[in-house]
């Protein structure tokens, strides 16, 4: 209920979120009344702030607080009894080789999956928007719409289905992959267990995760690139910049906020990775090479009946995720990113 009305903002300055005004011309008297705590205002705050806050506290904050408490108990998960054990569970995690291996794998995923996905997605997005013919207007390659659509396909398939399908593709003797490889004469690949060899299991699993995400992030970056004025690309081209140079020096800096957001989302998804890993290697893979924290948590909670200890793993997982997001922001800030909305070019 803003008292002053904004003129249409031409300079790209976005007006504060407009709330609908009851009546269309607030008089000066109304202005004064605004400052009093009337039933109106109180009830408005109650409804607009208190209610969401309550819902937030109940459904977000309280489970977090509870999880923190459970992580300091020896709760089995199947009774209402538990004993408080302080930080024992966390101390135990440090000496747990299997958990440490899982944490290492999750960290590996958090570094590699977002990096590769984003590079590929930016590459595809560039090609379908501005990477086309260098004569005439700035446009994507021929058939850009088609590529955009097919690159999005994997994202429409549920992750569990992707995992199961690829597990079949990787099958040593009957799988599509080895069928193709041996078909073109690579006999060394006969019966090679892609998901059963500790040298390839993680790489093969990462490939599937990346494959499933590239399409969506391509679409995201396409939208971002469309927001960049075409003149900039035309100017770059006149100055003699090639496709690669344009992508590195024009596209990436102009959509860096999108890239940062994508990095965080992808990192969170990669640190988790539960569905993919559980579908392809439910046991954690050869020598635990694809075992991730979320799988350890699941096994510890449901098959070992140690919910307290499992919750401690969950708390660590949450901390790792927060640290990851923090690290991405920090790197972004150090390399010159800004949070405030100031025109980009």
């Amino acid at each position, binding site marked *: 209920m803003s008292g002053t009305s904004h003129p249409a903002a031409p300079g790209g300055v976005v007006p504060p979120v407009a709330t609908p005004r*009851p*009546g269309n011309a607030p008089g000066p008297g109304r202005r004064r009344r605004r400052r009093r705590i009337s039933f109106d205002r109180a009830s408005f705050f109650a409804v607009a702030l208190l209610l969401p806050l309550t819902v937030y506290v109940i459904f977000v904050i309280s489970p977090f607080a509870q999880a923190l408490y459970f992580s300091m108990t020896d709760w089995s998960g199947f009774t209402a009894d538990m004993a408080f054990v302080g930080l024992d569970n966390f101390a135990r995690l440090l000496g747990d080789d299997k958990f440490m291996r899982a944490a290492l794998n999750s960290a590996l995923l958090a570094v590699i999956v977002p990096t590769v996905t984003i590079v590929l997605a930016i590459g595809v997005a560039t090609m379908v928007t501005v990477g086309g013919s260098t004569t005439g207007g700035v446009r994507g390659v021929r058939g850009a719409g088609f590529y955009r659509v097919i690159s999005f396909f994997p994202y429409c398939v549920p992750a569990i289905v992707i995992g199961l399908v690829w597990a079949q593709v990787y099958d040593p003797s009957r799988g599509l992959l080895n069928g193709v490889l041996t078909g073109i004469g690579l006999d060394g690949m006969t019966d090679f267990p892609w998901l059963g060899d500790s040298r390839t299991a993680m790489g093969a699993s990462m490939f599937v995760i990346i494959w499933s995400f590239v399409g969506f992030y391509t679409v995201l970056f396409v939208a971002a690139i469309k927001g960049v004025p075409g003149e900039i690309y035309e100017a770059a081209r006149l100055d003699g910049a090639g496709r690669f140079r344009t992508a590195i020096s024009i596209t990436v800096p102009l959509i860096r906020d999108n890239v940062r957001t994508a990095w965080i989302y992808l990192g969170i998804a990669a640190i988790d990775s539960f569905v993919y890993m559980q579908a392809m290697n439910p046991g954690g893979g050869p020598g635990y090479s694809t075992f991730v924290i979320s799988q350890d948590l699941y096994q510890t909670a449901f098959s070992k009946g140690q919910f307290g200890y499992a919750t401690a793993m969950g708390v660590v997982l949450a901390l790792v995720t927060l640290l990851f997001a923090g690290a991405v922001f920090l790197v972004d800030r150090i390399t010159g990113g800004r949070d405030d909305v100031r025109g980009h070019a």
Partner: protein
Amino acid sequence: MSTNKFTEGRLAQAALDRRTFVRGAVATALLAPLGGSLASCAVPSGGGGEETAAGEMTADNPFGLVEDSDVEAVIFNGGYGFDYVEFAAEQANGQFPDVTFEVSPSTQIAQELQPRFVGGNPPDLVDNSGAGSIGFNTIADQLEELDDVFEAPNYEGTTIADTLYPSVKDPGTYNGRFVALNYVMTVYAVWYSASLFDQNGWTAPATWQEAIDLGAEAERAGKKLFVWGKEAATYYQTMALDSAIKEGGDEVRLALENLEPNAWSHDAMQGVLEALHEIVQKGYFVPGGAGTQFTAAQARWSNDQDALLYPSGGWIENEMKDATANDFQMTGFPTPTVSDSPTLPYEAIRAGAGEPFIVPSEAANPAGGKEILRAMLSAEAATNFSETRLAPTIVRGIVPEDGFGSTALVSQTSMLDAAGENIFNYQFVDYYGMNADQLVVWNAFLSGDMDVKGITDGLQKISDDIAADDSVEKIEVS
């Protein structure tokens, strides 16, 4: 919003008031139950389930099931399905027409029922089986003792205990309390195609040396001896354990069950592992098992016949029903032994009751859960199970001579008969939930990435870690 200019201001005000009032009311309505649930989130104080008052116990109603009560059963929907319990519930319904029986399937017992155990309102009967089952070390003391089920008469009037195979209580007894009724009699053996063996003049190997020789024969025929899948690599552990126990006797079994140091280093166990290692090294396993889904691997044995032998429990015939070659004649034989003079005879087998049914103490109607069990142990439901699932139950004398036309079922009963008293069983793997960790080691060993010392150390470490973990309640086996 009204556009009447005359009363615009007031009307807007009034509308706003009315609107805020409505919202306030909605908010209050929303908040009241939320506030309540905040207090009782996730861990309620327990004892929530409404207890059904116990009825009178008579010969026809041995557990005092109350007329008009409701009975709820949650059944693991795996290899055996869940409709055999529905069948039994119908039988029970015939005895108690006014009781409502509800049988529902689940594939994730632990996840689905965990909140209900915590909340104190678990179902009256649970088939706690499958990969997502609840570890017995976590819930054993929250379960009803089931001795009275065995003491009750079945629907034919015979005391149930008198109709069962021996020692079927053992696998469901934890720290002296019989709390899990294992319904299906599972025989662990090595399986082959009798027709294929006849055609080639092969015989089932009785020792590991014979198995290795058979591997060479298989190679000449362009086949392999064994095949494995990544989720089922530990079937070879079961086979190795059985063979080692036959070789070294009870001392091997007890050392392993009681998580003793160096239990896996016993000579008998080492003898088996060395034989298996030789088979791996000679390339008698279908390669790539660590990357193959287990039913796909099993189909290479039962359907494609690329491998001659497969170690498994008696469920294998039912599991591979749709992927078995015509005229396969699936037949089982006891696990090969290390030497010609093992402590237990060659005919000794691991057999035990499986599919544990439990009745939670906090269930609303435990008598109803027990009544379904009573129906399951009566002739009609037991026959229905064996006939449709091709597996024996713990009830004796149900399977006819022709095994309902199943060679595997016939060989299970004949192996049981041949073994006589030499039937053994162990459950430390399931009890402590060790399978997931052992799978990783076995996959590496069968892939050829690990030698005998490597697998011995790997398996011993898994046992040692549990032995050293004070938070895990141990069971003493003797």
